[in-house]
């Protein structure tokens, strides 16, 4: 009980940090200089951005939007290089193998943090990497097919999953210990059902799996599946927030269904190797933070519901977010017996 209370306090602290630091980070970003001299002519050629997931999912989408934003703000060309696999580990380790010269940047999500916390990765995203900017922080939802006939809301879904005796399936993006798994395990624990969580690294396959009825449900963030929501192909049946956000006023929140744990959030950002030359790091921090504030990137974030929670974090704000999240994950893993 004591552990659970401690955990709740930690997660609550994290949420306060999420909202509070967001406001502070946004204010700091507004003071960015309009121009910045290129350090020693850097970059002389296009940069490469390693994206550790497939091109069709949320990471692929935010990478392309940020590439456009950086181009609009600074004229720098960046080429995306998709390295899906191993819940983001393939891309992360591939990135660390690239020369630390500033010409290769990394997109990554909170999986990098959870993987370090559980011991699956030795790369601490706020120590071995320098966050250039965190550009998306968002909540998750559970979706079913718009044409689903076996269940049509949260209550009937829970009933269906229980009747399947552990054989019901839900698609997500990341493996053991990830944000999705922890949130889903807690939901399953609360309602007393078992569900097969299947991690598809590529967005196209993940969304295709739900659309085609290969899986029963999907754990995802609303911005990543906006097109499917607009077309009625996907239907949200639960929002993992305590209150219903205005954009999803008809979808039950955690409070509505009796869930009391504080949900973990998804965040996506851009990083550089800590061994990259300091002047290049500073220049790229400016370039990516400017990229965030371009009209094109802001329009993208708004369209992806990323304006519902303050999304921007500069380097210091990002480090705090990562470290706070790391602390929460470690506590959760301890509680679950996944780490000592």
């Amino acid at each position, binding site marked *: 009980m004591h552990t659970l209370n401690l955990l709740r306090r930690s997660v609550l602290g994290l949420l306060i940090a999420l909202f509070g630091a967001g406001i502070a980070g946004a204010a700091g970003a507004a003071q960015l200089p309009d121009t910045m001299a290129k350090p020693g002519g850097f970059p002389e050629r296009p940069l490469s951005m390693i994206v550790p997931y497939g*091109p069709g999912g949320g990471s692929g989408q935010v990478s392309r939007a940020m590439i456009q934003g950086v181009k609009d703000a600074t004229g720098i060309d960046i080429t995306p290089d998709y390295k899906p696999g191993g819940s983001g580990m393939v891309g992360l380790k591939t990135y660390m193998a690239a020369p630390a010269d500033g010409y290769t940047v990394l997109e990554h999500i909170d999986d990098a943090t959870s993987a370090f916390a559980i011991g699956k990765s030795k790369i601490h995203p706020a120590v071995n990497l320098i966050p250039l900017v965190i550009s998306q922080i968002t909540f998750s939802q559970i979706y079913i097919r718009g044409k689903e006939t076996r269940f049509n809301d949260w209550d009937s879904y829970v009933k269906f999953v229980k009747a399947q005796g552990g054989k019901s399936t839900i698609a997500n993006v990341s493996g053991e210990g990830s944000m999705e798994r922890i949130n889903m395990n807690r939901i399953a624990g609360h309602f007393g059902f078992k569900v097969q969580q299947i991690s598809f690294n590529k967005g196209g396959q993940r969304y295709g799996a739900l659309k085609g009825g290969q899986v029963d449900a999907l754990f995802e963030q609303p911005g990543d599946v906006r097109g499917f929501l607009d077309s009625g192909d996907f239907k949200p049946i639960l929002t993992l927030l305590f209150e219903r956000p205005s954009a999803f006023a008809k979808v039950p929140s955690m409070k509505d269904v009796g869930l009391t744990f504080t949900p973990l959030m998804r965040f996506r950002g851009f990083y550089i190797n800590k061994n990259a030359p300091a002047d290049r790091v500073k220049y790229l921090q400016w370039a990516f933070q400017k990229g965030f504030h371009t009209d094109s990137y802001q329009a993208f974030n708004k369209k992806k519901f990323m304006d519902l929670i303050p999304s921007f974090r500069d380097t210091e704000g990002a480090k705090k977010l990562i470290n706070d999240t790391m602390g929460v994950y470690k506590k959760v893993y301890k509680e679950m017996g996944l780490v000592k």
Partner: protein
Amino acid sequence: MEAFIDGTLTLFGSPLSVLIFFCGLIGGLLFGAIPGINMLTLAAIFLPFSGLLSASDAIMFYSVLYCSGTYGGAVTAILFNIPGAPENAPTAFDGYPMTQKGQAGKAIGAAVICSAFGGTCSVLLMMLATPVLAEVAVVYFGPPEIFALIFFGIAVASSVGARTLWKGWLSVGLGLMMATVGLDPVAGIERYNFDYVYLLAGLHFIPIILGFFAVSEVFVQAEKRVRGIYDMPKFATSFPSVAEFWKLRFAVARSVGLGFFAGILPGIGATLAAFLSYNEAVRWSKTPEKFGRGELEGVVASETANNAATGAAMIPLLALGLPGGALTAMMVGVFQMHDIEPGPLVFINSSDLVWVVFAAMFYANIAILVLGFLETKTVLHLLKIPFQYLAPAILLLSTVGAYAVRSLPMDVVVMFVAGLLAYLLRRTGYSVAGIILGLILGKLGEQNFALAMQMVSYDMWVFISRPIVAILLFAGFATIVTNLIRALGGRNRGIAL
């Protein structure tokens, strides 16, 4: 028909649109032909500029680039044994031996015609039934079916290009083993990297293809020169006759079907299409022993299928918003830059745009025919370059291509090691095609198998009770057993045990 005419009028309605159409067409042909630097490179370079264009011009550029870039790699595969992209690798199996026999013109002519034909057929199918076909693909083909399809492809490939059945299987096995190097695609566990950080990223198939094809060929030809038995490829521009194509009509139809089928499955695409089609051409042939030695049908099967996959790959993208590969994913980005979400609503909200894409891909495939013939007349003259000048150029181009994939020096080393390995393996009757197929399909197969097993709660009975899975697995096992029986009975038309 009215919508198609409207799309055509929009496409050619302004000088800028016409210019962009030809930029995509020629850009794809050029970038597709350079190994290591392919149409994706041009697509990525162009991405930031696409926001400056109108939505229809921007999407049209990528559609045209996709068609011409897929064909572009066939030319270097045929002339120099350097496939511009993995989907052109099976083209080299017979295209290059045809060049050595003085039939380069015929091979390139066939590639041009078949690319245009395969592409046009798939665009027509795409126009007729995109929403229906997309539904069928995602409903009936999940990870279990895709794994079973890959298993079937590998089972069929086990006898392609090898001197004996055992050597064929060993070749595929070697390719599968090479695919395990690096991080595993399910949990990210490190495998066979020997604490060498660069091996964590795995062995990329482009440097290996360049080594197996281009570098090993330079070694082979160099050996012939040293021994005084080198024959310079004969220069000839004779194109395939109508009669030759008529003989191959069933192969072409089969390749269109296979290419379209593979292209429509998200995440599969043109490479598997080309390999499957080539393998089936061998399987159905009355003279399978001729494949790999300059059989026109090999070029026809590969090039028809890989271009047929391009139109098909647009179907899940447009109808469902599901990109199957890197280029179609970039197209999602282009759609979004213009505030359009690909998916079912695109046919309602932006049907004019969809028909511009259909029209652009249709005319791009027609244009490949014209430009391809012009290209054939000119690039064939490259064969007149003496070997002592051509070989260093091939090695230099391959080295640049291998390095350009990931900017890793290791890839250049891998390419030369693969070249040496292939030089030795080719002398001893092992199948380069089998190794490459195993390498390319190994990771994809492993990933889909792991997903499939999770989906069926690790219950093999549920797994094989899915009808398509059962049929494909049965067909795969039947192929293996049939080959074995034939080899044991000495009736396998060229393939011994």
